[in-house]
């Protein structure tokens, strides 16, 4: 049985007076892919951003409850945010490489952490790009501006940038919704390979994608978790009628 690496307990989140998350209790296990699904505005992205405190930057946000990462509450006052976000990295919907070379993008986090050894940087950059399954496509263009690559390649470069700082958990917010089907398939394949070493939690609007690659699926609606179960169970025989209706495309 895999161990729980991150969990939320009675997590509430308010944007001003609007309650976006209501008493969320969820657990995520190591070396699994979890998919968060649900209609727009249901709170799934908000929840994902709680897991590495990305919501701290939003004005008027108030959070109650706990998020325990390796048993430590990440909302405790003594949390080192830089360290936290190194361990729990995030990939966004739109590929967002920095406007400099592929190499500098991937080495960015390491240099920030004070790594200066050229050999070590080279090794890490190559390893990360390989893990993100984009090495073969960029290896002769490492010093080309990352923005000149295709969307799918940029997204995998962004994944490599996260991997370079050796995170434990990778959060992905609709990582393929801005990409074509072939690039999406490559990202999916990449994620399946990555789960051997990392824990992956992703928000997706693509139900087929959730069913294809995730081990666990969580269905959100109106800021609440309607159902969380093994993906097989969820897609073959969900407990709740609302889940079945959403999966069948009857609403949302």
């Amino acid at each position: 049985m895999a161990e729980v690496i991150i969990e939320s307990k009675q997590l509430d989140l308010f944007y001003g007076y609007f309650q976006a998350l209501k008493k969320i209790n969820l657990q995520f296990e190591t070396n699994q892919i979890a998919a968060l699904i649900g209609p727009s505005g249901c709170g799934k992205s908000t929840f994902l951003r709680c897991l590495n405190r990305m919501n701290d930057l939003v004005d008027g946000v108030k959070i109650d409850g706990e998020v325990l990462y390796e048993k430590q509450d990440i909302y405790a006052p003594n949390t080192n945010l830089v360290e936290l976000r190194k361990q729990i990295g995030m990939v966004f919907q739109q590929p967002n490489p920095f406007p400099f070379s592929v190499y500098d993008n991937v080495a960015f986090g390491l240099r920030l952490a004070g790594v200066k050894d050229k050999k070590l940087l080279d090794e890490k950059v190559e390893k990360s790009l390989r893990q993100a399954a984009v090495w073969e496509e960029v290896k002769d263009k490492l010093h080309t501006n990352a923005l000149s690559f295709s969307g799918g390649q940029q997204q995998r470069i962004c994944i490599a940038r996260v991997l370079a700082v050796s995170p434990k958990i990778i959060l992905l917010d609709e990582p393929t919704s801005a990409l074509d089907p072939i690039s999406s398939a490559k990202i999916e394949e990449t994620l399946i390979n990555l789960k051997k070493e990392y824990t992956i939690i992703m928000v997706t609007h693509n139900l087929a994608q959730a069913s294809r690659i995730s081990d666990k699926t969580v269905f959100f609606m109106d800021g609440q978790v309607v159902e969380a179960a093994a993906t097989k169970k969820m897609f073959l025989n969900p407990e709740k009628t609302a889940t079945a209706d959403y999966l069948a495309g009857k609403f949302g």
Partner: protein
Amino acid sequence: MTILEQKVTTLTSQFAEMGALAIEATMNAGRSFVNHDVELANRVIVNDTQINELQLKLEKQSFEIMALYQPVATDLRQVVGVLKAVTDVERIGDHARNIAHRTIKFAQLQRIPEIERNIWQMVEEVSAELRIAMDAYNQADLSQARTIPTTYNGPINDLYNEIASASYQAVADDPTLINTSIGYLKIAQDLGRISDYGINIAEWSIYLATGKLIELDNY
């Protein structure tokens, strides 16, 4: 290989394994009967649970593939083909098990060697038909699938008719042979049904290769 391809490959190779078990069951059931081998008959009966379990397992896998991976075109036909043909293969196992049960019941009965020779021949014909049908399915080879009715159904029906008339004649000559004769008829019927399922499997192999649902002509 994508995950879908891997899942479909596992599914079809397990189906091939299940087919091989059903052919073996048919051969062994027939052999146990003509050799009066109760031990072998018992083995056929025990092994049938394995075939039944494979059916459930393959059905479950097929549902999962459809729900999780949305197969289309060839992949979809592979999954639907297995989902349908698995029932035919399971029934073949059941008929083989019937024959094995009859071997055990026959231990005390008087026998008629000429009829049993025909039964053995029928077992061989039916097993050969199943092999062709399963090969056609596994390799999606239509030339073999299409020839099954012409190659096998004629001889199998002839054998059935011979066994039936010889059994009736035996009772007419000696009414004490009633149970023996009924037993022979039942076995010939079981073998006839197995042969029908073989044709079904051949039809699924044609669906698999072409996407066309057809009835192969029966004699």
